């Protein structure tokens, strides 16, 4: 696994994509080439009364240029401060963090442990120690030969862009927005995705949620990759189960350390977790991406 580093990087190009939705390239981290889609970084505030880093998912990875892009929503004072940072300013970041999506690079069948984002992770049907308890773990079509469905809700959309750029096969991006501020839509199209839009207010695309849109449009695929609010993820999990499609969900939770030490950001897991041997996987370290079967999404 790529080593985690905390560095003073530089703010690159910044832009506002929609009201309250900001884009920032971060240069000179020294770890951009190690990052994989689905991972996140910790961004530290200048105002030292705000102690905790803001965990923000990676939207784009420019390995050659040594740059990472984040797209975030202004959700509070910390991200508001971040939105005022200017190109060329220093910014403290730590990364790459978490596991990232498992992209099955042409392999249709894996057994037991699989490398995902360089870190050993579990496939559905394996015991927490990595021992396969159902013999084989089938991950078909995860971008290898099959068709991928990328499902993003709101500020869960950005990390799917990095994924879309790396998935080799056919892919449909089902993107849920509040309204007609359909940020990143064109970039998903440019990444080769067929894009389906769902909006809460019906101003663009399908009027309703992402699962309704998938059903209405008859979207088909072999693997789901999703990121978004927990109610959406619950819907994705149920849909994936109903359709018998494996799904990788990226979760969010309030974090402190970001590296798996403080046990703040846990989610309920189906099987005992490897760290505490209870039923609490660490979103920052064991995730943020989990197979749907690994986790319980409580209301």
């Amino acid at each position, binding site marked *: 696994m790529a080593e*985690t580093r905390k560095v003073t990087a530089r703010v690159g190009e910044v832009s506002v994509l929609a009201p309250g939705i900001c884009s920032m390239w971060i240069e000179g981290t020294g770890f951009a080439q190690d990052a994989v889609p689905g991972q996140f970084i910790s961004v530290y505030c200048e105002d030292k009364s*705000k*102690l905790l880093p803001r965990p923000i998912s990676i939207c784009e990875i420019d390995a050659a240029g040594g740059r990472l892009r984040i797209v975030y929503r202004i959700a509070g004072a910390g991200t508001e401060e971040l939105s005022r940072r200017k190109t060329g300013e220093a910014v403290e970041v730590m990364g790459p963090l978490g596991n990232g999506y498992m992209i099955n690079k042409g392999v249709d069948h894996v057994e037991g442990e699989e490398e995902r984002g360089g870190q050993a992770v579990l496939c559905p049907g394996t015991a927490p120690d990595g021992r396969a308890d159902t013999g084989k773990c089938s991950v078909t079509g995860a971008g290898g030969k099959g068709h991928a469905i990328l499902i993003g809700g709101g500020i869960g959309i950005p990390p799917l862009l990095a994924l879309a750029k790396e998935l080799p096969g056919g892919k449909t991006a089902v993107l849920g927005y509040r309204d007609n501020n359909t940020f990143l839509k064109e970039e998903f199209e440019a990444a080769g995705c067929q894009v389906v839009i769902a909006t809460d207010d019906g101003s663009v695309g399908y009027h309703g949620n992402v699962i309704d849109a998938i059903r209405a449009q008859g979207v088909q695929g072999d693997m789901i990759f999703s990121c978004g609010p927990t109610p959406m993820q619950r819907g994705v999990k149920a849909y994936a189960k109903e359709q018998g499609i494996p799904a990788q969900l990226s979760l969010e939770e*309030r974090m402190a350390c970001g590296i798996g*030490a403080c*046990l*703040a950001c846990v989610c309920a897991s189906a099987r005992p977790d490897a760290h505490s*041997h*209870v039923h*609490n996987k660490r979103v920052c370290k064991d995730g943020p991406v989990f197979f749907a079967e690994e986790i319980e999404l409580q209301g």
Partner: protein
Amino acid sequence: MKTNVTIAGVEFKNPVTTASGTFGSGMEYSELVDLNRLGAVTTKGVANVPWEGNPTPRVAETYGGMLNAIGLQNPGIDVLLSRDIPFLKQYDTKIIVNVCGRSTKDYVEVVERLFDAPVDLLEINISCPNVKEGGIAFGQDPKMVEEITAEIKRHAKQPVVMKLSPNVTDITKMAKAAQAGGADALSLINTLTGMKIDIKKRAFLLANKTGGLSGPAVKPVALRMVYQVANAVGLPVIGMGGIATAEDALEFIMAGASMVAVGTANFFNPRATLDVIEGIEAYMRDNQVGDVNELIGCVK
């Protein structure tokens, strides 16, 4: 330049450790911090059996601080002994194991399991504000502090450090009770019970409603309590509460702490422990202090 300090007969290469719960068992931070440089690693509280901890959200940021209500999620003593202690033994640092429990019997069970373990000190957490049974309940009544200290001392092989709660009217009473029970040293402070409300949602930020406040915001309170306790009892004190820099650490040492622990600062500066160690050394060089022990309790 001598930076070694001794607590209850255990010698540490420098007076800096980690505050329990902020550093795991060192494994996650070992990518960012050379553990060999630390005086000691203090592990996250461990119970006799695995604990699930509290529902999420478990943390909330506050001005200059944070609230946590992790609820002492831990894998239990079996995993600590089989995984975490062998991991830490690879490093040239001392090991302080923080012990938690819901009953005296729980604490004793853990302490007995640690009897033959290569552990240098036991820190007994009788002050966690986030668990319903045990934890802080033991730490707010002098009689119970004395009793549980005495009971643990009867079963422990390693020296015993009792970790005190600041959520009391007079912390020196608890310190004296621990001393009467036979404690070898004291550590303080644990977190201060606090709360945060989200006015948009009209709801508590933490699922547990209340949590323990830590970080720079609590430092003056912690420093005052360390000073009071160090001057009220003859026991060595491990001081903690908002320490983020060498200046903070030196204040605690001058107030009477023989050793200091860096906690919440690890979250915003993973190198905080090393910065503190290097800063103490720099202070000693700049001020011709040959032995860090000269500084302990030098402000009366």
